[in-house]
């Protein structure tokens, strides 16, 4: 059986789900960020797959490049925010960083 578009899409879906799972279930904020990276990479695989098999051509590859750059930038900022959160709350447990009254 030759590897087609669907195989890549399945992988990216699995990655996406794992990423969602990671965001939703991790207590540590850095872990949540890792989840976000996973989601982004899943989207990247999607783009590249469509570029090879879906008729996107080079547009897909280009898009993936942009996404990687953006992911890096976003990770930097996100970590900066996490640092600030740690400064404020002394804690990076996402369950405990709300100031909403119960």
């Amino acid at each position: 059986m030759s590897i087609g578009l669907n195989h890549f899409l399945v992988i990216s879906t699995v990655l996406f789900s794992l990423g969602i799972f990671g965001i939703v279930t991790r207590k540590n904020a850095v872990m949540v960020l890792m989840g976000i990276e996973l989601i982004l990479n899943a989207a990247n695989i999607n783009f590249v797959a469509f570029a090879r098999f879906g008729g996107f051509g080079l547009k897909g590859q280009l898009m993936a490049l942009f996404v990687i750059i953006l992911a890096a930038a976003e990770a930097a900022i996100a970590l900066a925010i996490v640092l600030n959160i740690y400064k404020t709350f002394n804690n990076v447990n996402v369950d405990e960083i709300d100031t909403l009254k119960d």
Partner: protein
Amino acid sequence: MSESLLIKIAITILFLPLTGFAVSIFFGKKFKYTYVIETLFISVVFILASVLAFVKLSYYVNANIVSEIQWINLGKVHVELGIMIDNLAVIMMWVVALISTLVHFFSLGYMKGDIRFTRYYAYLGLFTFSMTGIVFTHNLLMMYMFWELVGISSYLLIGFWFEKKSASDASKKAFLVNRVGDTGMFLGILMTFLTYNTFTFQSIFNQLSAGVLPFHSGFWLTVTGVLLFMGAVGKSAQFPLHVWLPDAMEGPTPVSALIHAATMVAAGVYFVTRMFPMLTGNTLLIIASIGAISAFIPATIALTQNDIKKVLAYSTVSQLGYMIMALGIGAYKFAFFHLITHAFFKACLFLGSGSVIMAMHHEQDIRKMGGLRKKMPVTYATFLLATLALSGVPLTSGFLSKDGILAGSYAFGSLTGYWIFAIVGFLVAALTAFYMFRLVILTFHGEPRDQHKYEHAKESPFVMAMPLVVLSALSVFFWYTPNPANPDAGWFLSSWVKNPVTVVPQEYRYNFMKTDEAAAPAAAESHSAEHHEVIFSESYTEAMHAAHYPAMGISIVLAALGILLAFAFYYWKKLDPDKLAESIKPLYNLSYNKWYFDEFYNGVIVAGTLAFSRFLAWFDSTIVDGLVNLSATVTRALSRFVGKFDSVVVDGLVNFMAYLSGFIGLIFRRFQTGKVQTYVVLAVFSLVILLFLFKSF
């Protein structure tokens, strides 16, 4: 002397005494001689009344001078006030003015030294004003107003010595009993106004002759007439409202002379003469019956009374009964004639009694008098002359008038078969002669029974004796007719006083008052038009002629009998009155106790009214107040319920709303966790749902 000048004179006569009253009331305290002004005014009134009477009766003898002003004008309702000067009015006015003037002079002597002297004269002025109003009025409304005014003047004057409880009680009794009659009169006036839309006499008579009847029936015309007559019953002290007049003797004697003998009580008779054209045969029969009863009962009471004024009071009621009876049986002219003559000799009798009372130091019991003839000759002579007139002895005016009434009752009996009136009339004539001469003999003749008082008695001064002389002089026959046996021949009855034309529809008149159209219409019309006199019918004139001499004869015989009996009992002492009284003790008691009328009224009407008022008071405090309290209680209960409802239900609802909001908020608050992860879950979840929803693309 034009007609308008006569009207002006009449208005002056009306308002001068009122001015005297006002002056005395407002300035009496400071200026003690206001009574001189009042007396002066009254003398002027008398002069004016004399002028008015002279001019009217000489130059305008057949005219009816009327002057009226519009008072109330509301669309359909027109009320006029006005003055009517006709022969009746000017004669009556002259009598009122004369007697009022004489009483003013008499009171100068009688009321001398009284602490409220000026106020007495003020009240006399008020009374004269009110009486003049009644005499000159041309409509029922003014008549009623002055009727009440006269009632008030009477109340004030009877209760003049109000420190005495009997006097204040008597004045209240007079006013209240009068009021009972006035209620009937007012109802009659209302019915008249309802039917005829006017109060003026002439309009009413015109409409009635055109056929307008109250509620379109003769029965209601009779009822109206009887209701109007009730006023006269009250004012003229007829049965059953006669009880106030004897008690009214508590007032000063000149007041009794003026009001309760000559003028006010005559107002009732005057009123009936004014209303005569609208009285049906049935009304007249009722009037005659009441008059006959009122003539008989007091005559029997006067036989046993021992107070000189009470005898005269009952005599007045009896004579008024004569006049009312005369009107009821159609002897209109003689009723008015008797009114005039009675005014003079009764006033003379009362003033004479006042003279006696003052001489005897306010002793009124005739059992303590006697032999005063020698001490008070003028009083005696005038009193005797007046008594002769009252008893109906020939050559006096009283004889003429009473004889006329008796002839009328005789004719009435022969025409209608009701002989009772003639019988009563003649019987009362005999009784009158008897009790009057009893009075004269016991007071003036015989031996003095109270020696001490007798010593001090002396003749009254000129101011008191002069009125007596004047009034007794007017009690002889020649002022009224040159023929002492035939009153019709004189000017009084033939040219001055005429029978009025009755306007009641034919079927409701007495048989003898029906004008027979077929028989002699032309002659009757022309004759009556000339003399403004109604020819009742041929049969009536004949009956009167036929009755004249028999009635005269019988009345002379009966008067003589009465006088003889009086002399036999009291002068010659042939018969013993005390033994006779013992032998007919029940009758004597009935007479002496005034037929127990006062006791009957007290027991039935007064007690009944008090019981009813007690019942009403109970009703008011228990039931009405109970209802009010009940409503208050119900309101309180209702308010408690509403309050509970408000606090429980309404507040509960509001609270529930709040709870609901809170609950919903509690539920939805869960979504806001502040955790990013939760939001992510939600976003993904919604995305999945959306994907499934829009699977198509």
